[in-house]
């Protein structure tokens, strides 16, 4: 890993009304590195995602971007530091069309707060067709679009605006084999561009294939970290379930 990680979480804790969702998590993602975060439901993955993307503030601990401590008062702050999140729910406004969702929260404007609809349409159309050449009729409410098209919008807007760290929350959970392969290709391409990727998943097979490092979260704590190159699927599953490695696996 590089000396100063792209983004680093140090001793992050988060309590909700007495529940300790995260109990001091350390996690770093370097440039061009794919780190997978795995764990059961309730392990704290989605809380961690929401802290990284500025939805929640941590109760304790520090977020560092390029070595410098930062605080995110809102999701807009996290985006300003180049942290983009693709949520499992995609976080699209179903009533709006593709360009509106693409530029949601950072609309191109002309004078006096007027929308620059022409430029938004053409830029969004270009970005979407880069990702999916069959994407047609972008100016209709996204509720009328297919799951693949909706995900393309969520992905396209996350990588369009100078992204440094891309957080992907269960990107393949709702996809078929073909689309899952496309997400894999996308991750490889972004990685080669020096973008850091934090991949949240509970599909161990998937992350073994895609990630440089796998961090296992259980009950709000990091219980282990493995490199797919020198470990097995079983070892990761064991960490997820028991929170420790098989005695035989780690002894060797």
């Amino acid at each position, binding site marked *: 890993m590089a000396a100063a990680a792209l983004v680093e979480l140090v001793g992050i804790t988060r309590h909700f009304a007495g529940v300790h969702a995260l109990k001091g998590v350390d996690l770093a993602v370097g440039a061009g590195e794919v780190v997978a975060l795995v764990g059961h439901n309730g392990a704290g993955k989605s809380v961690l995602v929401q802290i990284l993307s500025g939805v929640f503030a941590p109760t304790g601990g520090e977020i560092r971007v390029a070595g410098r401590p930062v605080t995110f008062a809102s999701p807009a702050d996290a985006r300003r530091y180049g942290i983009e999140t693709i949520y499992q729910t995609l976080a699209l406004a179903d009533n*709006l069309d593709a360009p509106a969702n693409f530029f949601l929260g950072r609309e191109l404007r002309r004078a006096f707060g007027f929308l620059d609809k022409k430029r938004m349409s053409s830029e969004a159309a270009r970005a979407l067709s880069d990702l999916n050449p069959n994407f047609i009729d*972008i100016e*209709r409410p996204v509720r009328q679009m297919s799951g693949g098209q909706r995900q393309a919008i969520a992905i396209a807007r996350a990588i369009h605006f100078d992204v440094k760290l891309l957080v992907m929350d269960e990107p393949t959970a709702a996809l078929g084999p073909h689309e899952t392969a496309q997400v894999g290709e996308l991750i490889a391409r972004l990685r080669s561009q020096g973008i850091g990727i934090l991949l949240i998943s509970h599909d161990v097979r998937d992350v073994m294939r895609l990630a440089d490092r796998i961090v296992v979260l259980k009950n709000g704590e990091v219980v282990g970290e493995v490199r797919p190159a020198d470990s097995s699927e079983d070892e990761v599953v064991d960490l997820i379930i028991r929170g420790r490695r098989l005695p035989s696996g780690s002894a060797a």
Partner: protein
Amino acid sequence: MSTRPGTRSIADFVSPIWIVLVVAIVAAALISDRFLSPNNVLAVLQQGVITGIVALGMTVVLIGGQFDLSTGAIVMMAAVMALLIGPSHPAGVAAAIVLPVLAGATVGTVNGLAVYKAGANSIVATIGMQFFLVGAVLAAVSGQHVRADDIAASFSALAGARPLGIPLPVVIFAALVAALSVVMGKTVFGRHVYAIGGDVEASRRAGIAVVRTGTATFALSGALAAFSGVLIASLVGHVDPTAIGRYEFPALTAVVLGGTSLTGGVGRPADTAAAILVIAVITNVMTILDYQYPVQLLVQGIVLAGAVAYYSWRRAEFAR
């Protein structure tokens, strides 16, 4: 940019309420030859204006996904305020217009913060505000009829002037419809209101200032309702605070008739204006035909039920 022709119907560009309006006007003209007389047309236009201005604000709030049921009480508060400030002296006229509107915007801001910052349910919060305002105003005037001693001509002119023969309130209403259409359709603020109404969590995650934008919709609604109250004060010069009409439900009727979704994210100020005119035309024809108020209410109820059924069907049809 690629678009596929034939996937849009005319209803995507012209809301069906405009077609209903044309049909209503044609029918009204056929039913009574008095309907299209200039005086009657102006009467139709004027009839809807007070409720219409209230409805415009409620449209913006509802596009954001929330209800503002405090508007009727704000109308009353503003009318009483305008008369108490005493528009008797020309110098007081500006204050009698501006201060109630500012008070309305302030009340709306409180509503907005309760809903968007504190997370209150907007129906409950704004009904609560309604009780508070009615109570406060009745206490302030001891439940008495409020009238200004003598009203400056310039204050009466607000409702009474007729530039080019058109009542000034009608001109103001048309200007407000045009302005709000631009704000909602062409500005970042409008876009954000639609986004919040579509999916508030997605909007927050996209970095939209949900609290600020949402609160602004309530402030706008409060200001517009208050302006309606000022118009009433100007029009009639006295207010019985215990008897002043409850504007929030007729206004909400127009908002819904105009096609604004009750769950937010869909709607247009101009469509609300068309709905206001539809209601005014129907009421007017029935008055010409000498149907009594209960029958008029009945017909309005049927029209509204039909509209709600139509919109529900259309949304179900286009949901996927």
